[in-house]
């Protein structure tokens, strides 16, 4: 073997990368300190043996390419140190020319990029994690610029809000043409702080959601605010429960009052019976006993309605239930009682078969309550000019496939102040008659069927309650 030429200056020996000079056969002619430290003394050995313990040159070897075309080449490789540690390197091969300008040897410079590579991998992993988080959190998230144009939005946001409405958040979330007063995003751009508020937004399906919105700044490396992120948490269910709890509290208070009155009626009845017995007054005894009976009936009806409203009773759905048949049963139940009060209870049923999956007991109770209310609305109608009272009991299929039950009376109607709280306050204006929760039963059964209860009323003219039940999804 010939004496190696002085191929590179000595100072290169301390360079912080692996340097080696190789001949055409890829034999190492010379190597720097770092190379010797990590790969050992290998002058005379093939580089592929040293780096990879291979028996042949690597494919796309940059050194071989440089020998061929005299150009600088580079590539990435994985090599193994003498301690067995695999490191990633960027390899650059530079030709060394002889006095005739031919490539006599090649300097191979390998820079360890393992750390860079590992950081890059971690970075992209972090990006993926963030993306996944962004997409999978059960919140609506969007990122807005200073003009309130949506820069980015997560899947849930895109699914539920119609981006075809426009590019600004106020177009998409609220269908507005200009920005909202008290915009959280603008506040965050202005002061760099997080802000929050409660909003009611409408999804593309027309559902209104109660949301808590948080706005927070997105900053660049210089801490300048480049965008604002809005996170919307759906609290519709929480609101609903909160509302229900409030209502329940009121109901319990109202119930206590009602129960006290019933107790008072019971004790009063006993008192009157006893007084009658003491003075041998048959009439008083009868009157007292009637009071007892009446109040026992009231308490049992109250308990029955209460059970309906509580979780105790789970709806039991059955297939092939004919709602027309249930309406007929309720009609039959009330015809006589209505007639006694001078009310014409009419039946108007859809000709087509409405069979489907329903909770028959629930529907029966729902209708009993609605018809009972309608009868009372006629009985207690203060308008003496009305010649007759009529209640229409209807059941039909709507164009959208839903089954609609209607109970329409021409009774007293509901005054505005009462109409506003018929579902909320479950109170009774009927004194002794009502349990105050009949409409709650109606609403509960309708909701269990995925349906809803609405009503139209005009004081002095009458009221129409409509229960719509969509076809049941299996």
């Amino acid at each position, binding site marked *: 073997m010939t004496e190696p030429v002085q191929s590179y200056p000595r100072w290169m020996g301390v360079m912080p990368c692996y340097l080696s000079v190789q001949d055409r056969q890829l034999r190492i002619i010379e190597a720097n300190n770092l190379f010797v430290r990590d790969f050992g003394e290998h002058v005379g050995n093939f580089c592929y043996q040293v780096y990879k313990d291979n028996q042949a040159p690597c494919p796309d070897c940059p050194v071989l390419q440089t020998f061929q075309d005299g150009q600088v080449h580079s590539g990435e490789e994985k090599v193994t140190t003498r301690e067995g540690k695999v490191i990633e390197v960027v390899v650059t091969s530079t030709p060394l020319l002889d006095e005739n300008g031919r490539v006599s040897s090649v300097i191979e410079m390998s820079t360890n990029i393992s750390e860079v590579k590992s950081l890059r991998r971690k970075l992209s992993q972090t990006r993926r994690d963030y993306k996944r988080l962004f997409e999978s959190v059960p919140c609506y998230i969007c990122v807005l610029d200073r003009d309130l144009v949506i820069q980015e939005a997560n899947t849930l946001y895109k699914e539920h809000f119609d981006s075809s409405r426009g590019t600004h958040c106020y177009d998409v979330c609220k269908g507005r043409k200009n920005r909202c007063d008290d915009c959280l995003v603008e506040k965050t751009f202005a002061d760099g702080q997080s802000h929050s508020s409660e909003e009611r937004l409408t999804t593309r399906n027309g559902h209104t959601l109660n949301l808590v919105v948080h706005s927070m700044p997105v900053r660049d490396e210089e801490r300048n605010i480049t965008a604002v992120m809005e996170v919307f948490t759906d609290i519709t269910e929480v609101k609903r429960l909160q509302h229900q709890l409030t209502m329940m509290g009121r109901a319990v208070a109202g119930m206590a009052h009602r129960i006290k009155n019933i*107790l008072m009626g019971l004790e009063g009845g006993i008192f009157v019976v006893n007084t009658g017995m003491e003075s041998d007054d048959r009439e008083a005894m009868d009157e007292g006993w009637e009071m007892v009976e009446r109040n026992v009936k009231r308490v049992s009806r109250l308990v029955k309605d209460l059970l309906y409203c509580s979780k105790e009773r789970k709806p039991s759905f059955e297939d092939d239930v004919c709602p027309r048949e249930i309406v007929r049963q309720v009609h039959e139940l009330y015809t006589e009682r209505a007639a006694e009060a001078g009310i014409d209870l009419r039946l108007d049923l859809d000709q087509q078969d409405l069979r489907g999956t329903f909770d028959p007991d629930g529907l029966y109770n729902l209708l009993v309550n609605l018809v009972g209310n309608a009868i009372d609305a006629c009985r207690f109608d203060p308008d003496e000019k009305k010649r007759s009272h009529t209640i229409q009991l209807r059941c039909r299929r709507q164009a959208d496939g839903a089954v609609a039950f209607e109970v329409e009376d021409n009774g007293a109607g509901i005054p505005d102040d009462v109409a506003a709280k018929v579902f909320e306050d479950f109170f009774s204006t009927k004194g002794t008659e009502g349990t105050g929760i009949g409409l709650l039963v109606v609403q509960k059964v309708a909701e269990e069927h995925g349906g809803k209860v609405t009503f139209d009323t005009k004081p002095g003219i009458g009221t129409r309650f409509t229960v719509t039940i969509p076809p049941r999804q299996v």
Partner: protein
Amino acid sequence: MSKKVLVIDDEADVRKFITAVLEKEGYQTVTAGDGAEALEKASTERPDLIILDLQMPEKTGTDFHRKLSRDKNLGQIPIIVVSGVAGRHLAVKKPAAVFDKPIDPAKFLAAVEKALS
């Protein structure tokens, strides 16, 4: 002459209970089912004592009481509150007595007697 007591409650059975207790003791009774009727009875019958339920439809007991107390003559009639509503003692300024439903007839009569003495 026996004293006259006006019993105001929207529930017929409650009115019946209270009047039965009072009549057994020899009091004269008049009844009213709502605030409007009560105001009318108070001015025509001039009772010596009023038994009032505070939660009634039409004109509520408190509303009735406000109107009654503005009247020079009727405003002086003592009132016993009988009600199932919490906070019942707050609505009438100086009730002669307050009873929760259901009442204990003996205690109730003692309060009536005291209010009328």
